């Protein structure tokens, strides 16, 4: 029984990847490809956030700072040094991981609401620094001049098709890794903490260490998403690290389903698709998006995947508690 779920996840991932990579062979649609590229970045961002929100019950309002940091670290490394793209990307993720560790160290001891506030405050401070440190970051104009040397293992990332393939592969592998973490005993621990922290601590779990680990991992994957975002815009801009962007990830998680692993991915897809379609027809995008969100919040009352699971429950695994701490 042990290896099965991991194998199943890997198979699903492989199939998804093959389908996504196959589509351009039949039909080239630049808008669809741009959509997938952006979705890759956002899916990693939102899913990493859900490691905190859905799994550990830690609502972070400032997650965007790691997304933005990943983008800036990557773009700056590419512009200022001669390192190759894969090295720069890894370096950016490492920098983001370290930053997440430091920020987490001061934040995770705070309980829910205060944790949310302090992560928001740290993000706003970070954003402030980006805008002020104009000589390094370009300030509000962002890092300009593009990202040079966009090649990796034969992919020429200036070409949309190659960027599409690269992002799809990175996203699927990243999501698979997150899935593995989430389904592992560590993930179970996080959910236990979310459901009943005193009981979990009596079992010998050191709460703050588990939370710090979750925060750091989530930050790392958000940074990876940021690298993809930087490739899409060929630079890095402060808007990637701003509060509204953190909000976007939260909405993706809520719209797609906080209790489903793929919920954030679906939510991100819904938000992006809605944006792409609605902006073609009207400039009153806020009106439409606001109404859609109200419909979800008041009508479905759950994210889409959660709603579907509640409506059509699968009796595959015995539930430990009625709150359904496990994920399908």
């Amino acid at each position, binding site marked *: 029984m042990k290896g099965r779920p991991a194998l199943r996840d890997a198979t699903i991932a492989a199939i998804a990847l093959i389908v996504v990579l196959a589509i351009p062979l039949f*039909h080239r*649609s*630049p*808008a*669809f490809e*741009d*959509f997938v590229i*952006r979705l890759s970045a956002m899916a990693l961002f939102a899913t990493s956030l859900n490691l905190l929100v859905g799994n550990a019950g830690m609502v972070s309002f400032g997650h965007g700072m790691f997304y933005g940091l990943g983008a800036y670290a990557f773009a700056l490394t590419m512009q200022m040094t001669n390192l190759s793209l894969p090295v720069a990307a890894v370096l950016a993720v490492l920098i983001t991981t370290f930053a997440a560790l430091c920020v987490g160290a001061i934040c995770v001891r705070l309980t829910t609401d205060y944790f949310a506030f302090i992560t928001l405050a740290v993000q706003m401070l970070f954003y402030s620094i980006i*805008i*002020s440190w*104009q000589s390094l970051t*370009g*300030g*509000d*104009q*962002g890092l*300009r*001049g*593009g990202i040079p040397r966009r090649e990796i293992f034969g992919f020429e990332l*200036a070409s949309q098709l190659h960027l599409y393939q690269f992002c799809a592969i990175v996203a699927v592998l990243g999501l698979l890794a997150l899935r593995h973490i989430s389904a592992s005993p560590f993930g179970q621990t996080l959910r236990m903490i979310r459901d009943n922290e005193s009981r979990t601590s009596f079992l010998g779990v050191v709460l703050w260490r588990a939370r710090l680990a979750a925060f750091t991992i989530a930050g790392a994957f958000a940074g990876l998403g940021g690298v993809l*975002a930087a490739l*899409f*815009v*060929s*630079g890095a*801009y*402060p*808007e*990637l690290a701003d509060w509204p962007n953190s909000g976007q990830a939260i909405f993706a998680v809520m719209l797609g389903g906080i209790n489903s692993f793929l919920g954030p991915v679906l939510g991100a897809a819904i938000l992006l*698709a809605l*944006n*792409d*379609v609605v*902006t*073609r027809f009207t*400039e009153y*995008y*806020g009106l439409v998006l606001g109404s859609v969100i109200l419909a979800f919040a008041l009508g479905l009352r759950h994210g889409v995947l959660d709603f579907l699971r509640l409506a059509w429950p699968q009796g595959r695994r015995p539930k430990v508690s009625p709150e359904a701490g496990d994920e399908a």
Partner: protein
Amino acid sequence: MSGLMTRRTMLAGGGASLLAAPWVARAEANTLRIGMQSILSGPIALLGTSSRNALMMEQDRINAAGGFLGRPIEFVFRDSKGQPQEAARIARELVNSTGCELLIDAEASSASFAVQEVVRDLGSIACIQTNSETSSLTADPKIGAPTAFRVARQGVHDAVAGSIYLAEYANAKKLNKWATCSPDYAYGRDTTAQYLQFFKQFKPDVEVVTDAWPKLGQPDFTEVITKLIQAKPQALFTLLYAGDLSAFVNQGNVYALFAQMTVATPNVDYPVLAAIKNLPAGIQSATRYLETFPNTPANKEWGQAYLKKWNDRPTNWSWQNSLAMQFYEQAIKQANSLDAKALAAALTGMKVNTPFGADGTITMRDDHTTIGYAIGWGQTTPKEPFIVDVKTADWGKIIELETEWKKQQKYI
């Protein structure tokens, strides 16, 4: 049997095209679509809406004259909300999916740079930047792109022209102590620094007693205003604009700020002038757009036409977008093609006749940015034409100092 096949195929095709519909847009066969993106919402929506208004007027004018290469033109407008990722996505969508054959980028700040990257990556589309005033967009060889051009005024041109005027004015009125108050972001900081640099060249005994840097969109300027008043400058230079300028004026009036110091600001657009109640007279201001400057019938006619159509006055952004279309018009006629490289070759060095030129013409330089547009400084009055005693800037001096500045920045 064959009928069933045909129907199924048709249904499948119809289904597929419905699915593809969100990402595919069809154009009328002959229409020439021109993509335009800008900020159409939020606090500086005026930038986008006044740009769009001017372009709609150009669309009518050009179509009445037969369009481009005999094809009617049609604008596709998009709102990026000032977000660079969205701006990049929109630029790509306009070109790749919506079938636009020309681009007008009316974005500002980071979004304009994001679009520039897309234009450089695509390489196959001509783009005119109409609202970004940052010099590096064209001056910095790492940022400039072969098929991207800029018709917006440049911060450095304004800084030279403004400094010459203000130095003269300051010398005449013996205003040696100045303060600055500009929004704390790249435009505010860089442009203020430029003004001060040139100002000191023309008036070496100027003393900056204090500087204030409110945040863009900051609702409350009180502590900034009292700080400024306390430093007792004789004059204040500010780059605040639009809603911020209005709030600053209103809050400044509460402290009688304008009675205590002369104020100089380049950013007084018509709608701002009209919207700010209790505008103090005697503010030294640049002309962003003024119907009476250049004082020609063509300029007045354009301003009046805009007012009549939109029931609002044009802004600086309006004339810049109109100018972009005038450049496209002439370039397309000259190159007889829409090919980006051909247009780029035509545009480089091109001179157009236009009501917005200081001498009736504006030239697109080899470095893809324009010179010769009307820049003037004068002082405000609460009534039409709002700015009077306008002095024309000396373009020879502007270009001379701009070149020096570019050398300093190591662009050349």
